[in-house]
């Protein structure tokens, strides 16, 4: 109450911005995350994604999920360092979009790559380590998405944070999934692996505490 009163005196534009900044951020995230996904499938459905749209949609959604997860993990350190607490309110949305991309990634594999050959689908998940770790990561993301509902979060109390620390494992598994999936060009996976490690190092104190 008090803050909004002082802001108003400095100018109504700033006050409006401060009041709606979280909403503005969220709208931006919706646009930046949803539009590429929409465009991707529009291009794929209208035969504009090249000779093998299957590979294209799989790669795009996979890397998209990873990007969004990394961004969501960047929020807390940035919010702390620059004292912008409101940023934290965008984490859930980013995480949910990351999960959405990951679900499309899996659906692409199921529908377009193995084309609903369920035997092949489950064999590949079990037999291929890189798909296995990807699947484990997706299950972790699923459990986080499910428990992101506010009511469930309240109900879970301290266990919620414990479960949601699973995101650190997920990000490592996804980095590994990417690394193992390429044929020879490991530059891009290495860059992603480095980014994941960097985000974990920013949380080294928290992680150290678990091992005490």
């Amino acid at each position, binding site marked *: 109450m008090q803050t909004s009163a002082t802001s108003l005196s400095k100018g109504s534009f700033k006050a409006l911005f401060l009041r709606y900044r979280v909403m503005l951020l969220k709208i931006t995230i919706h646009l930046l995350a949803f539009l590429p996904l929409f465009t991707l499938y529009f291009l794929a459905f209208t035969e*504009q994604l090249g000779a093998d749209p299957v590979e294209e949609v799989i790669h*795009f959604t996979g890397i998209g999920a990873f990007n969004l997860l990394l961004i969501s993990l960047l929020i807390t350190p940035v919010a702390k360092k620059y004292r912008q607490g409101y940023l934290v309110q965008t984490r859930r949305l980013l995480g949910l979009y990351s999960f959405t991309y990951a679900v499309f990634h899996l659906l692409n594999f199921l529908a377009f790559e193995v084309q609903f050959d369920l035997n092949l689908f489950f064999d*590949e998940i079990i037999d291929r380590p890189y798909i296995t770790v990807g699947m484990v990561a997706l299950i972790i993301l699923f459990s986080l998405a499910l428990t992101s509902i506010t009511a469930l979060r309240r109900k879970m109390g301290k266990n919620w944070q414990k479960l949601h620390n699973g995101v650190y494992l997920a990000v490592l598994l996804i980095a590994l999934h990417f690394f193992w999936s390429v044929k020879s060009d490991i530059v891009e996976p290495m860059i992603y692996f480095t980014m994941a490690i960097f985000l974990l190092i920013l949380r080294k104190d928290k992680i150290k505490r678990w091992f005490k």
Partner: protein
Amino acid sequence: MLINTKKNHQLSEQQVTDESVYYGRRELLKKLGYLGAGSLLAQSASTNAGALDFFSSKEEVLFQRQALKFTPAGESSQILTPEAKISSHNNFYEFGTGKSDPVENAQGFKVNPWQLSISGAVDKPYTLGYDDLFKRFPLEERIYRLRCVEAWSMVIPWVGFGLAALIKKAAPNSRAKYVAFETLYDPEQMPEQNSRLGGGVEYPYVEGLRIDEAMNPLTFMSVGLYGKTLPAQNGAPIRLVVPWKYGFKSIKSIVGIKLVEDKPPTTWNRLADSEYGFYANVNPAVDHPRWSQASERRITTGGLFARNRIATLPFNGYGEEVAHLYKNMDLRKNY
């Protein structure tokens, strides 16, 4: 439900997709923003680039291809992969590791003059110049299935001549047990050869065959496809085609063919011995360590919704012609 209703509509559309759309795919993806979340920024950047194109010479001349004279193959019982797909979906790491990199980066590739030398354990070594590639041997068309180790496949009408004719002309001697092939090494033209990372591959790209494999009538030197000289990204001006082996054996833009006594090194085997063997025969019973080789996606006219997963056949369906070459070999060990 929606998926099924769309399917039929799509099938009628895809036959008329313009070649330029395929070539422009990278542009489309740029507009889409490769980094998913960063898409709008990328889009505006690419719009700016479009405005500046007027000043830069973005209008690149496409690699020139000439019509060839050859004996045509008969009617194919299989649906051919459209030319636009064959020439826009390539693994040619010298021009970039993405599937659409070669078509983007190879358009300025200079193939004339060219020199292909046939040397080693032969009595009459010789060299073919650019024109010789198309004149020295009678050209014929062959429709072959190409099975990539990545579990997709195409059906391609190649134009060329048998490798056996080319080797016989050099009169190989008794020390000729293997044939070693080498791609052009020219980092100025092939940017990835220059990059220190180079997609992880050691250049020049090299491949090899046992002499009896090389002399098999199926083994083909291609100088063209769809009736014209090869597109740069498909390995112009001359490449190998070994239809019963995974695609990476079919080395592109060859400058050297050497008859040798010992088994020569091969690029992908050198990179990952456990994943890519010297023989690399198409074999549904031996999986790649990271994916199944039991089936493949046949890329023809269909798009995203094509139900194109088919069983992979031993020796890619050419067992009758080549299985005898491996009679007493354990193909699980000699993958």
